[in-house]
């Protein structure tokens, strides 16, 4: 089976208002941006007789700009644009690294941050980075805009909490109040390029006087139906010194916030152990 082009209806939007109108008029049209995931299913012949709403022509949603409080990335910003953006590289290096680890150069040049979120894969490589930076997602709907915390934007595997008539317009990433003392991004896949992650991690750590943890943020992808922050471990570590026992307890607490599965890419046991090791080495005294 293949995609049969004549069976696909294409609606092209040139502005946010047009996109919302077209979506209201054609509720079954699937919104697409870079199409890097959609087209794979299309090529397998799984999407014939459908219609798409092509958002790629909406200029307003392609901008990446620095605001007084952070970075605003339009939903249509590509992974390549974010990877190379000077503010992302300087202030959000984990996001730059995550974007550089998505697929390949060819995919980074097409795939968009908004499309990646809307696609809601449990394995989205940018998700742990966006989660530890406390990103928010701007959503456009018929009644105006709303902003939701990034980590709360997923309902499950391949499902967001977006309403049927809503579209992601931008991602807002606030500058951290201080430079983190340690940071990590780590993708574990079969190979570096193209592979879908077995586990993917991002972490930020701020230390106070005497090595007391001020704040730790850690997030994992591919370890649950949606990206997770390690709330239990984060809460436990605040105010503690990173002794071997404390690090070990934090690594044990990791399991409270995730629910990895066995699938064709890896096993739950492997995923859990590798994720714990990434957390352990991140927290281990230098």
């Amino acid at each position, binding site marked *: 089976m293949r*995609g049969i*082009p*004549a069976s*696909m*209806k*294409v*609606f*092209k*939007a*040139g502005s946010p208002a*047009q996109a919302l*109108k*077209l979506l209201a008029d054609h509720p079954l049209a699937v919104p697409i941006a870079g*199409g*890097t995931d959609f*087209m*794979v299913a*299309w*090529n*397998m012949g799984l999407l014939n007789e459908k219609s*798409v709403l*092509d958002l*790629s022509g909406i200029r307003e949603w392609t901008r990446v700009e620095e605001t007084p409080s952070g970075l605003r990335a339009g939903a249509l910003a590509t992974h*390549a644009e974010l990877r190379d953006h000077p503010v992302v590289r300087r202030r959000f290096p984990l996001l730059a690294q995550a974007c550089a680890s998505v*697929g*390949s*150069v*060819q*995919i980074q*040049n*097409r795939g968009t941050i908004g499309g990646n979120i809307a696609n809601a894969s449990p394995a989205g490589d940018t998700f742990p980075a966006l989660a530890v930076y406390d990103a928010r997602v701007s959503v456009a709907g018929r009644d105006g805009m709303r902003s939701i915390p990034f980590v709360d934007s997923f309902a499950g595997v391949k499902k967001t909490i977006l309403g049927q008539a809503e579209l992601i317009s931008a991602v807002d990433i606030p500058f951290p109040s201080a430079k983190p003392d340690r940071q990590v991004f780590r993708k574990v896949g079969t190979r*570096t*390029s*193209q592979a879908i992650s077995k586990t993917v991690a991002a972490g930020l750590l701020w230390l106070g006087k005497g090595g007391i943890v001020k704040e730790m943020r850690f997030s994992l992808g591919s370890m649950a139906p949606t990206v997770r922050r390690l709330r239990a471990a984060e809460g436990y570590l605040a105010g503690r010194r990173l002794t071997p026992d404390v690090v070990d307890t934090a690594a044990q607490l990791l399991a409270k916030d995730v629910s990895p599965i066995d699938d064709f890419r890896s096993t739950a046991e492997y995923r859990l152990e590798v994720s714990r090791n990434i957390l352990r080495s991140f927290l281990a005294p230098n």
Partner: protein
Amino acid sequence: MAREACDKALVITVNGRRRAYKGPPFKRLLDVLREDFGLTGAKEGCGEGECGACTVLLDHAPVASCLVPASQAEGRRVDTVESLARSKALSPLQKSFMEEAASQCGICTPGILLTAWSWVKSGGSADPQAIREYLSGNLCRCTGYQSIVDAVVKTVRRSKKESLIRRQVSPHDYLPPRGGGK
């Protein structure tokens, strides 16, 4: 403008020439190039954006043309491997590939040449590791990659020398390095 794109012609600038495609807008750019424009350099390998055999340059950036609907190439510039050689004269990058025996069965070669050309053109370095990373979306099952990396390194080195005397931008000349590409 919002519209229901039906069988209206789409204009795409392919290898420097404006061409009109009339057909379903969701036909893949790969198929439009091969079937409608007779440019068979881009190959279909996996059809999933994993292998890179269908790589073309869309507004100078390497993309998997099997993942691009024609409607998204409308009004944009597409360069295929056919743009590299000037009539019968191979470009310096292609010559390096010949010299290093960087092509065997040849299926992956058009895609690899375009990804490599975008690296050279944007001022990419001669660091083999950086080149390997940039080319990691292009699979080759024959060469083991070493000869390909060697050919790109050679081209970058030559281009840095050449750029002292040349300024014109085409696959036959070189852009001066701007520290881009990485």
